[in-house]
């Protein structure tokens, strides 16, 4: 069993719906420690992604993820645009000419995406950012190379744990870092949307993934 291009597209659709439903929650999280634009920006960005993908066929992951990336980088003004845009762009470049990918291939593509985010935002693990959700998810994928479903289930669990672990953290990046100690006790909105992303990939795989 491998992750298919069709399943990746389903994951993006699921993410759009999930963000639509959670936009106020994301905005609430962001108004506590940021500039209250994360829910609105993600919602607007992924709505535009769905418009872009409508009636479009892709021949590989690179084409699909490039469309996602370019739309986010054209439509989103907050930090979610460059960060998620770079993540999808780099992830796609690493899966060029592929219509299916194994857990190992997906993990290493996501690692490239994460490296891109780190280059852009200069964040490291523990800075209370999206990294804290995505990085444990990649590690979980790497530790379960044989079993696709088990790998993505544990990746989503790890992302959720990573997201919750941002609550006691002191923010070191972005607007929330200006708050210093006052950022402690709040869950990071970026880590939250990153958990949504990983959980949508899990759901797409379990419902539509393998052959």
């Amino acid at each position, binding site marked *: 069993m491998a992750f298919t291009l069709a399943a990746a597209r389903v994951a993006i659709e699921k993410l759009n719906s999930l963000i639509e439903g959670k936009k106020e929650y994301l905005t609430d999280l962001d108004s506590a420690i940021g500039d209250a*634009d994360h829910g*609105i*920006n993600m919602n607007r960005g992924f709505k535009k992604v769905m418009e872009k993908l409508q009636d479009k066929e892709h021949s590989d992951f690179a084409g699909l993820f490039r469309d996602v990336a*370019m739309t986010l*980088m*054209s*439509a*989103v*003004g*907050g*930090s979610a*645009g*460059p*960060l998620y*845009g*770079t993540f999808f762009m780099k992830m796609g470049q690493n899966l060029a000419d592929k219509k299916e990918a194994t857990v190992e291939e997906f993990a290493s593509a996501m690692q490239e995406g994460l490296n*891109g985010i780190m*280059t*852009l*935002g200069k964040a490291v693990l523990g800075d209370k950012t999206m990294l804290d959700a995505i990085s444990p998810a990649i590690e979980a994928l790497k530790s379960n190379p044989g079993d696709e479903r088990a790998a993505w289930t544990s990746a989503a669990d790890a992302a959720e744990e990573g997201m919750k672990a941002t609550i006691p953290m002191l923010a070191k990046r*972005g*607007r929330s870092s200006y708050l210093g100690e006052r950022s402690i006790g709040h869950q990071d909105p970026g880590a939250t949307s990153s958990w949504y992303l990983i959980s949508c990939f899990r759901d797409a795989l379990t419902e539509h993934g393998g052959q």
Partner: protein
Amino acid sequence: MRVGILIVSHSEDAARGIAQIATAMSGGNVEVVGVGGDGEGGLGVPVVKVLDALSLMLPKTEGIAVFPDLGSSILSVRGALEMLPPDEAAKVTIVDAPILEGAMLGAVEANCGAALEQVVESGKEARDLKKTEH
């Protein structure tokens, strides 16, 4: 050709206004461009908007000094640089400076025909500019 100045702000109005001031200070001889806003009246500047501005300016300039306001504006500039060919991206420097004072001093320096490095240095000196002691 002279060094160009790109001002990148969350706000389109702020970017245009600062570009207007920097243009006035440089005699209109320097390519000064301001980009900002999300294109729908909101704050924040998308990567592609910065990329488009850089692509238009590069053929007309001897390098570009970029003055961002803060936070996601800086991420958007870095994202745009990632998307340029490396030899083009090498002609662009992000300057860590107060946006208005930096762009203004940078534009004045560029108008004197200074190289990119010197324009960047002048921009950085804006941090120590005393405004009320004269």
